[in-house]
């Protein structure tokens, strides 16, 4: 082999070009076999030194050493690069796979409806009061103008614990407790759980939840009650909701009314849910009966008041489109997770 400095430099250029084309382990191996092994080009060039003139030998040796170092360095660099890219491929970010999620918490649908309603009334100046679920005849019935042996008691099938203790059948006893604990003005809402001894079916359960409201002051009128509940209905069911007040009967209010709203599912056209009437009964209300004021020691000539009460569970069912009330208390997480 005819060795001169030119051929050494040429080879350096070749090495540099070759290494650039290397993109895999196999190609790198080809590179190594071509330049760096005992039978490779560079070693053979070293062999060629012997046949060079003695004056050229040191210079050629130096150049060849440079060549070998360069080739080795390029090889090492490429090797490292390839290894790195190999690791990178393994850990490569796949933007398409799902992230690691944490569980999403939920409030029970009944709690959600109850909280939403309560918050609307809070924004209208109502405070929140709570009371016990075990009540006595006085708070649950008598003070609310249900005389003993009165047919009005049949309106609420009661679970009794003894002669006088019972599971409250409505949240109205909290009204009595609030009025006995403080003087007017009163503007409270009272959420809570109530119990009725009714046969369990898709439509009714032996316990449910109510939201009670009470306002007592001078100059409280039925017109204000209507306005308050109208605003509530619009905030809760949507601003296009229509409403109607029908006379009804509750022993603790006089006059008493039921509030119906236009069915929010069919927009009042009539559907299965509203039994084709276009209307849904959502709450009972009225002006606090003077007998209730007397029972709690208020003067009905000085103050007037209004009260209202609504069942939460059935409204929640309508609102969320659940067709069996029992599903609310089975607590299947596949249902609960829909209420995130």
């Amino acid at each position: 082999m005819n060795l001169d400095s030119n051929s050494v430099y040429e080879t350096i250029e070749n090495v540099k070009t070759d290494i650039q084309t290397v993109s895999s382990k196999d190609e790198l191996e080809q590179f190594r076999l071509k330049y760096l092994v005992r039978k490779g080009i560079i070693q053979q060039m070293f062999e060629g030194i012997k046949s060079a003139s003695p004056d050229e030998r040191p210079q050629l040796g130096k150049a060849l050493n440079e060549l070998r170092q360069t080739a080795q360095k390029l090889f090492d660099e490429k090797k490292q690069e390839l290894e790195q890219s190999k690791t990178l491929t393994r850990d490569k970010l796949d933007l398409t796979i799902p992230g690691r999620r944490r569980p999403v918490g939920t409030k029970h649908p009944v709690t959600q409806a109850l909280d939403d309603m309560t918050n609307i009334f809070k924004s209208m100046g109502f405070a929140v009061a709570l009371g016990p679920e075990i009540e006595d005849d006085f708070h649950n019935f008598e003070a609310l103008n249900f005389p003993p042996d009165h047919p009005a008691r049949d309106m609420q099938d009661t679970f009794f614990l003894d002669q006088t203790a019972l599971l409250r059948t409505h949240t109205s006893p909290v009204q009595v407790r609030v009025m006995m604990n403080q003087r007017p003005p009163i503007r409270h809402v009272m959420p809570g759980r109530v119990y009725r001894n009714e046969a369990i079916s898709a439509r009714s359960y032996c316990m449910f939840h109510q939201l009670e409201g009470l306002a007592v002051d001078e100059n409280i009128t039925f017109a204000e009650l209507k306005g308050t509940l109208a605003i509530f209905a619009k905030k809760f069911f949507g601003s296009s909701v229509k409403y109607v007040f029908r006379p009804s009967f509750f022993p603790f209010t006089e006059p008493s009314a039921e509030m119906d709203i236009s069915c929010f599912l069919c927009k009042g056209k009539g559907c299965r849910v509203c039994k084709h009437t276009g209307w849904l009964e959502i709450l009972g209300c009225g002006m606090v009966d003077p007998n209730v004021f007397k029972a709690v020691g208020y003067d009905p000539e000085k103050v007037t008041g209004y009260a209202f009460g609504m069942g939460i569970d059935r409204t929640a069912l309508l609102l969320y489109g659940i067709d069996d009330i029992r599903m609310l208390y089975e607590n299947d997480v596949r249902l609960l997770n829909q209420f995130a």
Partner: protein
Amino acid sequence: MNISFNWLQDYITIHESPEEIAGRLTMAGLEVEAIRSTRETYANFVVGKVRDVRQHPNADRLTVCDVYDGKQTHTVVCGAPNVATGQKIVFARVGSVVPANGMHVKEVEIRGQKSAGMICSEYELDLGEDHEGILVLSDDAEPGKQFSEYYWNGDVVFEIGITPNRPDCLSHIGVARDIAALYKRPLRIPKIKLSESRKPVKSALTIDIQDKEHCPRYVGRLIEGVTIGESPDWMQRRLKMIGVRPINAVVDVTNYVMMEYGQPLHAFDFDLIHNGKIVVRLANDGEKFVTLDEKERTLTKNNLLICDAKQPVALAGVMGGMNSEINNETTSVLIESAYFAPSSVRHTSRQLGLVTESSYRFERGVDPSRTAEAADRAVQLIQQLTGGTMYRGRVDAYPKKIKPINIPFRNKQVERVLGIAIPASSVKSILKRLGVEVKESKKKGEWRCVVPTYRPDIEREIDLVEEIVRVYGFDNVPAQETAAIRFTADDVRPGIHERIREWFVGAGYNEVVCNSMVPGTWNIFTGKPAVTVNNPQNQDMTDLRTSLIPGMLQVVGHNMNRGNHSLRLYEIGHIFSHDPFPGSKNYIQNYHEGETIAIMLTGARNPEDWSLKDATYDFYDLKGEVESLESKFNLDKIEYNIYNTNSNTLIDEAVGIEFKGISRGYFGKVSKEVLKSFDIEVDVYAAEIDLELFSEFSHVEKKYSEVPKYPPVHRDLAFILDEKVTYHELDQIVRESGQPLVDNVSFFDIYRDDKIGNDKKSIAISLEMLSKEKTLTQPEIEETLSRIVKAVEKNLGGVLRS
């Protein structure tokens, strides 16, 4: 209350459609819950004529009939023995729905013979029990005429939900009276003309009211020479229309007059009344009486009885007796029309669990002024229907006259209560239409209102206001969307429930809501004396829960059965006991009630994190949840102790939560026994904490303490300790001895092996040290560390692990 639209028109002229009247009644407080139209019920049922009857070729008991329905002739297979050529019958066309059973009539083939329609029996038409033979109509029935028109005259029934305050509307006249008031129309009450004999009733009948409180009025009338038979079609149809089963003419009349006037009547076979004497008295304790339903009733001294000279003959206002019932041999009839005190009838009805149309009306209050009129109407109809001779006059025992009440009324109250002024003339007009007599009073701005006796619900001024707005219309009261609110400083603390729920939602829990009524077996686990329900709905709801955990375990079981294995649940709810417990309140004597929070974890710790797929919940997860919850609410004085599970067996290896020396809850792994009873086969971790701990002791006040300016230094230490030394003790010693530099101590490892010894453990902790004044130097750090090591050695016998 079922009201027939046609029947109503006996008393008032109606031009409006049933739907319109129903709407108006509903808006006046008589809620029409349903409208049943005979035209809908009997759609496609027509009068038919049987033109030919032939033997069915393949069935002995069947015939093949040709039925003409006014338009065409249909071939129908019929199984009735009484079908005959020439009969007028009720024909159900193909496409009709049988009222009795909802069956759809279709074209079918019966044993090779096509049949297109059906000839109906009484039973199928929902008119009676007879389903052996077909209903045969009278000869003048015109084929093709709709059955609803032929039989019912196209009548419509309103199902009205009468509220307990409106007994006056439990009759057709009553509802007609309200319609008359609403539409300003005259009411027509039937004129009663009696043809009486010369025999005075007083010669045959005496009435002795011994208890005028319970029975203020009792009217008796006699009619003799009657023959007991069926009542005529027109009466039967009216009764059937509103769901009353016809029995015989006399009984039907009493029911008819009750549905007409609202006055319950009773008819006795007068020949079975000893000595022609009626005595009204209270029963003796233990007295026995057999009512019409053939049941022997044991009475108490609170039950009012109608007796003859010898024995009881009726349970006043509730039900008559077997011994004096109208029967086929009856010839003379005593009609009872009375006013019994509502509470008395209600008491007896409830005590005996016997609710009748009669007791239902008496306990709400019948009109004491129409007692006699109703008796007259009854004998008039009986005479008209069955013949017979009326005794002259009636016995009217009325020892305690009930007068219309007189209410002072201030018209300004209307505005005060409703928020709208209604002119005095309108108010007067409304009251007058309702039968209230309005008189001027000496007091200015006040009237005196005389209320008719049929309205026992109107007793006070406010009741008159109610009546006025009921007729005036709630719609005409404006919705006032402003209010003058007086601000109060109550309820300044934001709701603890909401704040706790916020935490749970943020921490990825599902809230559950469980029944508070539970089976008694669930309460055995907690060992607390449980409150029981006197009248439970079933055996699974006999007790009130003493813990939330069993209910939540049921939820876990339910979910597991449906393939939901990883659960992270919480509930906030009331628990109850006869004994006080931490956080309980004693609103009602002998009952204690409190609110608790329960947490339940089971299954995969985070099923939606694929890097942690196989990690399942363990005790430390639960403990961490409890600790995080408590730190969120700044409960820094909490101590965790070993919880005694002797009385409460829900949890194995439980940790108690103690605050200021009071146990406020516990947590741990639910015991295998308990899990077994809920058919749960995997580990479940549960905690239950008194809510009062959060509502009363959580630090609401927020106060800033300076954030350190100088960087902290971290050092780790591991100690070999006796098993019995708690982490809490180590933590305390380290914190105390590391003062003032140790700012925080955290756990990072626990380790046990043979090398360190059998009853030993190695606990590694990480210390964070800092100074508020300067950067710490190496000697200061070393000095503190060696102090800590010595203190641990001295107080806990711990050895530094090198």
